[in-house]
């Protein structure tokens, strides 16, 4: 009756039976266990041990660019608390046409308690278990081989969603490295974080992230992690950076039309993946030309990041505590309000001088 619905009749009944398929619903079942997930791979992202189990060599290939260890031989996982188990099944029966990577194509997220549903396109479904740090997903063959999907789309979603359950505090700010020290640039929307970030890339800074920095803490110090993602500039940034005009415009994960660029597009250095946070600048536009720094206190920093943090369910109280502890320690960094009426390039020179002076001292 269809490719998925068969009836077999003895010839004598052929004239007596009539059947019509009115609404055919195919149920797809995915069982996640060791027998269905034979391919294993371990890698480190943002200081977190990711343990991938899948039935797809292609998925493992897409993620093999990440380091397999923290550096020291045999020290793969610092502790189980910072391990993210990722179980992925590639379904051969799913649509194998080219994956639709438009961010607005059927992306849908919902969460209740410790469980999160994620639909990333019509063929890719995920459940995140924040209590046990586990991801379950079923994807189409086209998605399985799409490196962009895994590295630029799924990983940022995973780390943004799991965040503190992996002992990472995701902070909404840009982050750049200068000679081994990291500068966090925070501020309200429209303050100019992205254009300042772009201009700093032309002043000796390396990019960690343009919109979300992941902070981890050990007893001695904080670390800030990036995911090696491109940075985004809105179309009107062309007035400050005409060199980006030849690049194509695309849609970002929040649906905005923008340029997604590698730092080299502005003549900048490569991206960095980890650094030590040292300074925080809270960018504020000012009507007056010129730029000035005003020192701000711990409480301001704490309140700024805490008030912008996502609400967390009661099921993961430890994660809430970890995030709050990290945000409190971020308050100990050198923090300033940066009031400016300057262009991004002039402001970047001012910030570069400030950081260079700090590094020398």
């Amino acid at each position, binding site marked *: 009756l269809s490719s998925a619905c068969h009836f077999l009749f003895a010839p004598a009944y052929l004239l007596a039976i009539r059947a019509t398929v009115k609404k055919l*619903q*195919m*149920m*797809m*079942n*995915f*069982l*996640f*266990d060791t027998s269905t997930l034979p391919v294993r791979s371990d890698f480190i992202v943002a200081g977190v041990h990711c343990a991938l189990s899948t039935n797809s060599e292609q998925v493992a290939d897409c993620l093999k660019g990440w380091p397999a260890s923290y550096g020291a031989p045999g020290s793969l996982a610092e502790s189980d608390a910072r391990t993210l188990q990722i*179980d992925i099944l590639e379904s051969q029966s799913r649509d194998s046409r080219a994956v639709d990577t438009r961010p607005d194509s*059927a992306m*849908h*997220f*919902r*969460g*209740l*308690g*410790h*469980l*999160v*549903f994620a*639909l990333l396109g019509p063929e890719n*479904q995920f*459940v995140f*278990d924040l*209590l*046990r740090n*586990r991801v*379950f997903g*079923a994807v189409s063959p086209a998605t399985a081989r799409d490196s962009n999907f895994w590295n630029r789309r799924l990983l940022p979603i995973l780390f943004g969603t799991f965040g503190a359950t992996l002992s990472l505090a995701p902070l909404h700010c840009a982050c750049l490295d200068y000679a081994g020290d990291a500068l966090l640039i925070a501020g309200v929307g429209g303050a100019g974080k992205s254009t300042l970030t772009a201009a700093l890339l032309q002043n000796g800074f390396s990019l960690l992230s343009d919109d979300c920095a992941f902070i981890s803490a050990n007893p001695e110090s904080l670390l800030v992690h990036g995911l090696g993602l491109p940075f985004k500039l809105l179309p009107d940034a062309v007035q400050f950076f005409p060199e980006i005009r030849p690049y194509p415009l695309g849609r970002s994960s929040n649906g905005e039309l923008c340029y997604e660029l590698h730092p080299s597009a502005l003549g900048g250095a490569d991206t960095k993946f980890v650094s030590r946070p040292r300074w925080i600048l809270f960018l504020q536009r000012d009507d007056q030309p010129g730029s000035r720094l005003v020192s701000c206190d711990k409480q301001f920093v704490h309140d700024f990041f805490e008030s*912008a*943090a*996502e*609400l967390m*369910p009661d099921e993961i109280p430890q994660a809430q505590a970890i995030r709050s502890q990290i945000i409190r320690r971020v308050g100990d960094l050198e923090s300033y309000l940066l009031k400016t009426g300057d262009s991004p390039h002039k402001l970047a020179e001012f910030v570069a001088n400030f950081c260079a002076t700090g590094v020398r001292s």
Partner: protein
Amino acid sequence: MIQSPVPVYFHPLDILQRFAPAPYTSVTLFSSAILKTASNDRTLLPPFPDLQVSAEDVEASFNWKLLRDPTAQGSIEPPTTFISETLSAIFMGPACLIAADRQRRQLFAFLGSQIDTRAYREHILPALVQLSRSFRAQDTNSRLDSTTHRSFSPAPAAEAFIERK
């Protein structure tokens, strides 16, 4: 277009809609056990025998949280199910997302506004019931496991008896 009886919920720090209010509750008898349900839509409360007690007064065997999601478009799509050691999930498109944590005996669902009472009773509720029965099956299995375990390793009281003897 079916009008949802539930207003659209929005909180800038709750993009997953975890904290959408669920003011309607029920305590019902399901499969000889107590089921507590919370929802933002009275029509989603399960049609099981009501125990006529306050949700605070009893400890439930299962907990369901069923949210009507007015922003989830579309109707029920062919189901995809995930089964792992601890979780079961059923995806029927953005308008029907169900997940159950069998260890914690919790079940969560988001249902779009185009899923009417009939579709809910005919397609969704049986799925919720089946998932909840899997909680019970797991209970039974763990009880069987512990019984088996006891037959091989004596309980402390029995050990004391053996020593005395």
